[in-house]
């Protein structure tokens, strides 16, 4: 999924992105997501805080979706990839 973004139209509020780094999520793609900031334009990077956290627990319930799990300001993304996370940050 490609995200086309016109940055000038967006005011970047401070966003906390929590990358679940429980063993399952980490091994199933979470490791790569820790470099999220590399995909964000340099002057907007400061407004995004990327944290690694111990297991968030979503993996225990199959209805929550597949790993890796990420929370953007507390909202869960299942089977997360860079595109999905950026999309959520920008669209709120």
């Amino acid at each position, binding site marked *: 999924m490609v995200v086309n973004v016109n940055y000038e139209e967006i005011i970047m509020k401070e966003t906390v992105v929590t990358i679940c780094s*429980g063993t*399952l999520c*980490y091994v199933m793609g979470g490791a*790569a997501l820790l*470099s999220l900031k590399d995909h964000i334009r340099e002057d907007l990077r400061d407004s995004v805080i990327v944290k690694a956290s111990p297991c968030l627990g979503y993996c225990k319930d199959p209805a929550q979706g597949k790993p890796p799990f990420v929370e953007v300001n507390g909202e869960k993304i299942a089977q997360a990839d860079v595109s999905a996370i950026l999309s959520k940050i920008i669209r709120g």
Partner: protein
Amino acid sequence: MNIDNKTTYIKREIMSKIAKVFLDDDIHEINRLPLQIIPRTAEPNRCCIEKDRNMVKHRSIAIMGFDVNDEDVIDNSLLSDYAFKAKERDKPEEPILTFIDEACKSCVRVNYYVTEVCRNCVAKSCVLNCPKKSIVIKNNQAYIDQSTCVNCGKCQKVCPFHAIVFVPVPCEESCPVGAIRKDSEGKQFIDYSKCIYCGKCIKSCPFGAIAEKSQIVDVISSIKRGEEITAMIAPATAGQFPVNILQIVTALKSLGFKNVVEVALGADITAENEAIEFSERISSGEPLMGTSCCPSYVAAVKKHAPDFEKYISHTKTPMYYTAIETAREYPGSKKVFIGPCISKKHEGFQSSEVDYVLTFEELGSLFIAAGIDIMRCEESKFDIKNASPEGRGFPVSGGVAQAVLSYGEKNRIEIKPVIINGLDKKNIMLLKAYGKGKCPGNLVEVMSCEGGCVAGPGSIGNPNICMSKIDEYKKIR
């Protein structure tokens, strides 16, 4: 450099579920694996979910350590048949790699292809310049006859519209020694007389057609039998998980490893011995010495650049020295090397000192199967003793040369290191040239994996974060 792709994640999911079946000793459950991984509602990866499920079956067989080449046997066996066989054996049989024929699409037969950009021009440069007369015009388009084309690339060069493209076969492109190619029927196969077990083909195939025969099942069986088992962890471990390496020590002990030892201990011995050997060799008139800890490069030299073989250090690898120390400290203990490396699996088979070899990917799958959350683990100390920062610095490109430099400081000889960072077709040529004496330095460090062992094919960490974690590791006292 690892590029994660979907085949990697599918493999890890299957591996962790197989590990769970063996940990729980619920062997018949394994027959449900293809349905669990590919449920009815899943979006197919290939043509349909039945093919996907069949692929899961084939991949599971490889993960349990078996060859996947006799489709008659595979079709007529249950996964549990293989699982019971795996429980009874000591370890898998060589070779360590297996080719999953079902997965391989053999990509393209020849590498040149005429796209729709072709304008069927009057010049017809492609037709005129083809040395094998392989190009014909069909339906207003140039068309390359795959049975006669010899891949010379002339047509691509002469087309005025750039309508002819080079289509790589990813595994063939990635192999530095031409060990993987097509047989007379156009199917891919691995020529083990050339293969150096570097693992590049495994990571490059977009269909995941090449697999390692894992020993994950054998390690679990050993733990469940109550055998004393020691984990020897490569220094690259520090960069693999988002935690301090001492937390991994705890995680390993929770899995059932009685002792956890740093392979950096062996690396210290290797560096010290190589420094001495270097000094002796150069003083006696030899022009250069190559390091010896990367088994893929050593195999590459023996099979493809034999002139260089005489320059390779006779010092043994860190894995070997660590195994000796471990045997002395914990006699009778089984020894498992855990690292980023595929070719260590081959070295493990050749060496009676090491019982099993696992990659970090397999270790991650074991942690998942056992429900161990690494971030919640406390720190534990290493067993035997702590290694030095030099030994711990081995897994980064330049790290071995650096260690030899440090240990060799007291010698009078100036060390001029030459680093080969990653083996590819070009660097193999370099090794051939160095073998004939044309080398700009006198200590050649060769790493098959670009970036060093931290970026090996069995690694799971984020290469961007690796460096800072290795630095953190070096500081532990």
